[in-house]
């Protein structure tokens, strides 16, 4: 595992890393390095090879060969004779209790070009991990944030062309301009810079760097901005060198400069006199900005509306006012009307006298500059003490729509009334559809494609407008009108169109699908009007209200043939699924892990089977849970025939179609979904269910495309991760569920993704919620209504598959036992049986544990894959989990895997941990707010005595064939102080001894503790035949 660090050094980003000491072979060889001139070799810094490998794993296509590997000095906190690691993921902190001091360490590094740095930082935005085992260090994460800041400034065009002669060759530059809020943001970012981000120096420097963070940051943002603008515009402008060769002289130094601004290298050609003149001219040109950049204040403009008279009016005369205010950068909450600044001895004025700057000069020059944008300001300057200016409604509208935007872009503060949004007044003329429900024909025959009639209404806010009212508005001829206390923006053309609408009485027709989309606000209204929802009566009205959650839908009794018991919230979930299913609308059930998404889905499947002509449902899930679905279906819907479409022996083509037609549920995996889509598409599915639907969050993947291409009466997506929080992932899942509801992918990006992610537009977020809300049901185990339905302890068996490798190892162990079992007797037989049990359990856990060969971890164990998926959900929602295994070796593997996969620290307690350290682990797990979320324990070391109530999940990765021992371990979280419901997940490899023994224990539960005793010895008492049966590997073990 490697933590990547990035520091600024000589204007470039330098990448280095810390490598964890997991690989003992490697670390010793590294310790013996040659002595560097000043700094000794960092004991656990990543080698050049490890850095290269990490970059390769990220698949960025970075060719580190292009930027030479080098060594730099990292000045790091050091205790004793070892640097303190950046996190416990890398190494235990040095034992020395001494106060840390700063010491130089030589580390291998890559000096990145700006292009490479941008690529790396872009990939690091918002990430904790870049690839398995490649962790983003705090400093690298910081620089990624800096890149975002540079990107934001660039999007907002806060940069200016410049010219510098400081470099080797005179260069044209693009300089970020930090005015207004950007100056504050820059200062804020500088304050948050981790020291590690500026702790590198060249190898021959003998003193630690002390360059202030502000300077480091300012320079790097400038470097990024310069590079980014250049790449955006370098339309193949040849760099100076090749121009020289081809003799392309410029007519003037200005041509050369403009060309250089667009070229990659930025070199400006010209004779000394020309260049000196250019420098002077650029300075001269940019001079007015200088005043804004250097000042500690910002000038703000606030538009103030006329007092409300309570009538519909356009507010005659100059009733509006633009007020000038001063806002100090270091206290933006302070807004001082400029009258105060003019007044001698104004009360607040002391707050403005800082940095020895002159408020009046600042004000005068700012107002003077702003007057170029907003001519009314010029007039106000005739006054000896300008404080603002009055304006009429038309001018106020112009200020809102034009001048305020220009002022804001020029770096001034602008405060507009709350009723104004970027798209105009909140209340606008809008149309809504008035729908009359057709007669229900016995409840059937209605679908999304049913044609319904409606007519248009013109409305303002919630209220319908009469023709007379519209005509009255038209007569006002003002762009802003106050109607019943609310300002409304309107223009003559709009009002005329509304009148035409009003007069057009002919009824319109649309499908029910269209009506729903109108109601959700995802359809464009005719003639650019706003849609103001749908007004509907009758059953359509009721249905729309049900979708909206305003009216509860009918709760259904679970289907008769369903053999489980649904908890009350599960009945609601099942009824909700049925409600949407009835209309052919897709549903995303996103309940927390453990709340029973499976059982609710199966209840629906059972009902559907009975009512929809016995057609099959395709259930797609990760390979690791294929078995689980099969088991759960057998348990809850024993009457439904299940076909597992998996493995090499699966049916294909027409044979499959026929086979599928005979089953109620066809379980398959995402991998096969894309591989077999050609004939999967031929089956007339009743429904498609995607389990762990985040698997299709990327719409470009083949599995997502395949999922979208299947036809069915209804679609369900199941996921335990909060999809609604991740705007980017939502489109693909929604497009699968309800095609077209969120528009095309590019429309979605434009209408929702960019406004929400980049512009933080709350109305876009609200709209998205309104559109998706009806189709997503997410209950948390902490919800009040859920808690009361849940038992304190929720025990679940998690059936996993074996990988092919596991299955063949399992078979090999069996074969070996088989050969010796017959001849063995007494104590020898007992030893053989216990040994075999242990070996098989190890195989079920992980091949690497069984082989003990320190080999790779990923994708070799069904249990581990499932555990990883479940832990991801645990981490995502901020829960804490205990993971028990009876094998210490497995504990090591688990810890390494969890840390490498999630980049988060996992604690591991085993028999060899001294008491003091153990207490510290417990303390950290229990009390630290942002402490480790996952605690791995060996059953023997952690099974008793500890109090671990901050966990609310317990995983038994392998089984101790004694319920009492398991329960004791589980009880770690049930100590006094446990306030939450606890979920216990028992992992079982289906079709192996684990499932058989589990079954035996279940059957004998009542007598189990007496019969079975405290250890696993009871198994040795089984006859050879019984034993063979217990150990045998059934076909379903590998999920086929």
């Amino acid at each position: 595992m490697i933590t990547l660090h990035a520091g600024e050094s000589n204007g470039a980003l330098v990448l280095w890393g810390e490598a964890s000491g997991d690989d003992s072979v490697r670390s010793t060889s590294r310790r013996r390095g040659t002595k560097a001139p000043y700094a000794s070799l960092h004991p656990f810094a990543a080698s050049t090879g490890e850095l290269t490998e990490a970059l390769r794993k990220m698949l960025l296509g970075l060719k580190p060969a292009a930027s030479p590997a080098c060594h730099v000095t990292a000045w790091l906190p050091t205790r004793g004779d070892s640097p303190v690691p950046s996190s416990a993921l890398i190494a235990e902190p040095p034992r020395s209790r001494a106060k840390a001091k700063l010491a130089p360490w030589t580390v291998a590094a890559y000096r990145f070009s700006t292009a490479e740095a941008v690529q790396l930082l872009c990939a690091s935005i918002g990430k904790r991990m870049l690839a398995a085992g490649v962790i983003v260090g705090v400093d690298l994460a910081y620089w990624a944030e800096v890149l975002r800041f540079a990107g934001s400034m660039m999007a907002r065009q806060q940069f200016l062309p410049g010219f510098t002669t400081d470099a080797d060759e005179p260069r044209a530059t693009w300089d970020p301009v930090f005015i207004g809020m950007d100056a504050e943001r820059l200062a804020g970012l500088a304050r948050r810079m981790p020291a590690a981000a500026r702790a590198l120096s060249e190898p021959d420097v003998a003193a630690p760097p002390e360059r202030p963070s502000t300077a480091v940051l300012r320079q790097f943002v400038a470097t990024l901005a310069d590079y980014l603008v250049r790449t955006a515009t370098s339309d193949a402008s040849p760099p100076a060198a090749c121009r020289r060769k081809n003799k392309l002289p410029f007519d003037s130094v200005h041509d050369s400069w403009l060309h250089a601004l667009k070229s990659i290298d930025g070199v400006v050609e010209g004779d000394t006199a020309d260049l000196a003149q250019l420098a002077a001219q650029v300075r001269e040109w940019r001079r007015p900005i200088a005043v804004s950049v250097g000042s500690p204040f910002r000038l703000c403009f606030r538009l103030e509306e006329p007092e409300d008279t309570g009538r519909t009016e356009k507010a005659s005369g100059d009733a509006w006012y633009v007020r000038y205010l001063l806002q100090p950068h270091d206290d933006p909450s302070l807004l001082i009307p400029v009258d105060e600044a003019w007044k001698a001895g104004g009360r607040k004025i002391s707050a403005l006298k800082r940095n020895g700057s002159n408020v009046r000069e600042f004000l005068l020059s700012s107002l003077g500059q702003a007057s170029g944008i907003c001519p009314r300001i010029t007039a106000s300057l005739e006054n000896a003490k300008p404080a603002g200016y009055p304006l009429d409604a038309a001018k106020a509208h112009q200020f809102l729509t034009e001048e305020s935007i220009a002022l804001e872009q020029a770096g001034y503060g602008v405060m507009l009334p709350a009723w104004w949004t970027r798209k105009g007044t909140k209340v606008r003329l809008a149309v809504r559809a008035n729908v009359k429900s057709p007669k229900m024909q016995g409840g059937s025959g209605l679908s999304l494609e049913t044609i319904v009639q409606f007519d248009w209404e013109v409305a303002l806010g919630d209220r319908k407008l009469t023709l007379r009212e519209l005509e009255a508005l038209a007569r006002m001829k003002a762009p802003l009108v106050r109607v019943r206390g609310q300002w409304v923006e309107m223009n003559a053309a709009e009002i005329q169109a509304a009148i035409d609408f009003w007069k057009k009485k002919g009824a319109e027709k649309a499908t029910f699908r269209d009506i729903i989309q109108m109601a959700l606000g995802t359809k464009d209204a005719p003639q650019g009007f706003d849609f103001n929802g749908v007004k509907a009566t009758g059953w359509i009205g009721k249905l729309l209200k049900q979708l909206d959650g305003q009216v509860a839908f009918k709760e259904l009794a679970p289907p008769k043939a369903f053999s489980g018991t649904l908890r009350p919230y599960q009945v609601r979930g099942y009824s909700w699924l049925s409600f949407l299913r009835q209309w052919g609308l897709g549903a995303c059930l996103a309940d927390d892990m453990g709340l029973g998404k499976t059982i609710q889905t199966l209840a629906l499947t059972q009902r559907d089977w009975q009512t929809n002509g016995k057609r099959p449902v395709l259930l797609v899930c990760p390979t690791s849970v294929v078995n689980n679905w099969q088991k759960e279906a057998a348990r809850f819907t024993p009457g439904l025939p299940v076909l597992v479409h998996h493995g090499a022996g699966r049916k294909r083509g027409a044979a499959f179609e026929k086979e599928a037609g005979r089953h109620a549920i066809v379980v398959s995996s995402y991998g096969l979904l894309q591989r077999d889509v050609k004939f999967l598409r031929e089956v007339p599915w009743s429904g498609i269910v995607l389990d762990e639907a985040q698997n299709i969050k990327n719409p470009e993947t083949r599995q997502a495309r395949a999922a979208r291409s299947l036809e069915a009466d209804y679609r369900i997506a199941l996921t335990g991760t909060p999809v609604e929080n991740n705007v980017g992932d939502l489109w693909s899942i929604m497009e699968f569920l309800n095609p077209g509801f969120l528009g095309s992918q590019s429309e979605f990006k434009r209408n929702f993704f960019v406004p929400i992610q980049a512009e933080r537009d709350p109305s876009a977020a609200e709209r998205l919620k309104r559109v998706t809300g009806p189709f997503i049901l997410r209950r948390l185990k902490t919800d009040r209504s859920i808690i009361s339905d849940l038992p304190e302890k929720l025990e679940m068996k998690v059936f996993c598959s074996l990988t092919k490798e596991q299955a063949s190892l399992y078979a090999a162990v069996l074969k070996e036992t088989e050969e010796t079992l017959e001849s063995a007797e007494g104590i020898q037989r007992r030893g053989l049986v216990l040994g075999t049990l242990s070996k098989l359990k190890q195989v079920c856990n992980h091949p690497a544990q069984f082989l003990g060969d320190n080999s790779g971890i990923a994708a070799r164990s069904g249990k581990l894959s499932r555990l990883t998926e479940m832990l991801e959900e645990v981490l995502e929602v901020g829960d804490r989990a205990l993971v028990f295994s009876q094998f210490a070796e497995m504990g090591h593997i688990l810890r390494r895997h969890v840390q490498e996969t999630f980049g988060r620290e996992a604690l591991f307690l085993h028999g060899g941990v001294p008491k003091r350290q153990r207490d510290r682990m417990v303390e950290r797990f229990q009390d630290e707010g942002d402490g480790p979320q996952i605690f791995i324990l060996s059953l023997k070391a952690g099974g008793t005595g500890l109090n671990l109530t901050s966990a609310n999940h317990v995983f038994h990765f392998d089984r101790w064939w004694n319920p009492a021992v398991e329960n004791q371990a589980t009880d770690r979280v049930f100590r006094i102080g446990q306030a939450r419901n606890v979920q216990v997940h028992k992992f079982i490899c289906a079709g192996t001894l684990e499932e058989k023994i589990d079954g035996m224990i279940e059957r004998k539960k009542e007598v189990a503790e007496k019969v079975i005793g405290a250890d696993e010895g009871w198994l040795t008492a089984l006859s050879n035949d019984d034993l063979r049966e217990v150990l045998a590997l059934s076909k379903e073990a590998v999920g086929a």
Partner: protein
Amino acid sequence: MAYRYHEYFEPSRPREAKGGIKAQSGRGGFGRSWWARRWIEVLEGFDLGARLGRGRSYARRGQVLSIDVEKGAVTARVQGSRARPYRVEIKVSTLGRSDWKKLTTALSGQPIFAAKLLAGQMPDNIEDVFRDAGLSLFPDKGADLETDCSCPDWSNPCKHIAAVYLLLGEEFDRDPFLVFKLRGVERGELVGLVGRQTAARSKAGGYEATLGSFSEQAPSHPPPEPLPADPDEFWGQENAEKEDAYGVARIPTISAALPKRLGSFPFWRGKESFIPALEEIYRKASPVGLDVFLGERQGSE
């Protein structure tokens, strides 16, 4: 010599000049601001006839290769029909120190003068202030203006002088202080004089005059920041994203607002027009910035 002879008598066809200063004004004429127009009126007062029109076309075609403005004097090179560019000199008589004292006292009487000047604009009734002091801001053509050109044309002002004069007028739009410079006082000096007096008048309010104290660079050199040795402080905590860490990344509806706020470039000599050229760059850069902000720019190509 026939060639030269021919050239001499077709003086309206000068040699093609490359990289000269090109007038940015459209057909409407030179000088948008009243003070630029006032300057040009002085030229027009000379009654140049056809030479004025040729001067205009020289200015538009970039025949003027360079213009240097000093206190009271302008020197320029103009590409005419000869290989060697002509040298043009325009001398404006400067006002004396005592004159300026008198003027600044009058100017600092109203904040509007300081505001306008600080913002790069000429206060509307500034000429009244000059007149009241018995002076004139713009040169009187007879008394204050002296022009010279190295061309063979005997008339003065010739079309070369006219071209330089027009381009100067255009430059006044951008920077009214050039008018003052020609009259003998630099921008800094004038702002200092007016500002100091304005500030002195409001001393009652306790303001200190530090005109010109703002500079484009970071206000001061921040002190060195030693690295902390404490591990927690050094490695820092994971930064919870601050609410407004980056600002709203929105592509503006109007491109290149900052350059537009600054206006045209001093004596622009580029082939492309300056602001439109920048506008295109800004338009292209914005979406790239947005992609970077959203982390969607993976490849460098």
